[in-house]
């Protein structure tokens, strides 16, 4: 157990910081034209509606204790919080005042999600704990503007030495496996999944698909990724931990999520899962990615 929780590479969590920060930023930027409707006091289930009838609350039981935005009857305050969320999530991604901005972004995201969970697909639910795990790690020290601005006082840490406590990585790993277990194991007797039709369904459903094309003629081909997903996700909680197979399985799942992102629009689901999956990749692979900018600009690959 000591070995399991021994300090280890946190390259994946540094990458998660960038991915999650940008995902949060773009997700909320997408809602800039609908802030009043989705989150404002005159919006659906807002303070004005509750003043007419308390029965118009749309807050779900799970988020009820933190639904504070419903009590705010000023759209200016909502806009201020919304703007703060955009700025803080971007700062978190680039690593400026990393931890403070990360905490602000997480808290505001939790409040906006509690105010109107129907403004999102399900990804914010998993996003919140994943973000906590990133914040628990010293991601501000590596690949961040914070580290770069402080380089006069504290030399930049070489990319190969981005090490931190293991517990945030382990929490991310076990939570990701719980996610795949619940998603994958619940489908094992599902007729649509057994027939390999669910990737087709995701691509064909007008609510999710990006391309307005009829995929039906390609259904026999689409059964292949459908069956791959049917097998890959339920087995992930076991196989991701095996030394020889784990990284390959993580790559398979990454490709699956990438494919779904290209074909279907399900909010930030794929980015949330792809970011989290990085914790199962070998650190050397991520080191190579982080060193890429240095290589491209022909500098020494010692630090970013």
């Amino acid at each position, binding site marked *: 157990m000591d070995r399991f929780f021994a300090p280890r590479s946190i390259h994946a969590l540094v990458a998660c910081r960038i991915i999650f920060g940008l995902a949060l930023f773009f997700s909320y930027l*997408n809602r800039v034209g609908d802030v009043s409707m989705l989150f404002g006091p005159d919006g659906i289930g807002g303070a*004005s509606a509750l003043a007419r009838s308390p029965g118009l609350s749309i807050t779900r039981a799970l988020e009820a204790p933190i639904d504070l935005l419903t009590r705010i009857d000023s759209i200016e305050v909502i806009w201020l919080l919304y703007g703060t969320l955009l700025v803080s999530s971007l700062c978190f991604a680039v690593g400026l005042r990393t931890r403070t901005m990360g905490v602000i972004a997480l808290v505001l995201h939790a409040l906006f999600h509690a105010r109107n969970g129907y403004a999102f*697909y399900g990804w914010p639910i998993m996003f919140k704990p994943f973000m906590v795990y990133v914040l628990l790690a010293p991601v501000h020290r590596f690949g961040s503007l914070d580290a770069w601005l402080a380089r006069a006082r504290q030399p930049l840490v070489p990319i190969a030495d981005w090490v931190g406590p293991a517990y945030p990585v382990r929490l991310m790993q076990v939570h990701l496996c719980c996610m795949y277990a619940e998603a994958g194991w619940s489908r094992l007797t599902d007729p*649509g999944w057994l027939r390999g039709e669910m990737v087709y369904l995701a691509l064909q459903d007008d609510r999710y698909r990006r*391309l307005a094309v009829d995929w*039906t003629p390609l259904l026999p081909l689409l059964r292949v990724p459908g069956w791959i997903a049917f097998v890959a996700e339920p087995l992930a909680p076991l196989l991701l931990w095996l030394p020889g197979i784990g990284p390959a399985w993580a790559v398979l799942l990454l490709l699956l999520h990438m494919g779904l992102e290209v074909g279907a629009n399900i909010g930030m689901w794929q980015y949330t899962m792809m970011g989290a999956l990085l914790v199962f990749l070998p650190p050397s692979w991520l080191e190579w990615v982080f060193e890429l900018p240095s290589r491209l600009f022909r500098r020494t690959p010692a630090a970013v």
Partner: protein
Amino acid sequence: MVAWMLLLMAGISLSGDPLLGSFGATARDTLARLTVRPGMALFKNSVGEDKVEAHCTSVTAVTADGRRDSLYAPECPRSHFLWRTDPQDQLMQRIAQNTLTRDLRGEPVVLTAESAFHARRFAALADYYCHSRSDADAHSDYAKVEIRHHRLTRNIQTGEMVDRPHVLCRFACRANEVRAPRCELETDPGAAPEADREANPEGMERP
């Protein structure tokens, strides 16, 4: 370590073992108090041979003097590339469409105490449109809101497309009394709306 164990127990409980399941339920309850869910059953309970391809929803509001304003009527099914999800589409999907077709299994909706949560959020959606009048000369809110929904379903064995059911939900806009919309199957969806039809007929359940 505590958080790690909670997640592990919550995850292992999915294996179906009764003893582990009781431990897992405790772990899940504890996590739920922190608004944390160990996982989510995505794309579960898929349909059989018939695949719903499009949910078509529109919202029309009627003023006191009978003018009808179309408040939401997206192209359905879409014929263009979608690089992002429109938040209003998403809201409509997750509240109106899910309520009308999945959560209530596509039956003509009679929102009762058993579906109080569905009724509440559906009423909140309609109430929003009731008070969304933005005309410069508007002195009052809308008198009623109508939400229409139908779905296009394809049988992937035969290729047959079916356009049904057509559901019409009516919601009376009242200042101090909020009632759930009443929904019924439309027998003749193409017929012109009756101008004098009662917007909030008897028999509607309170949310």
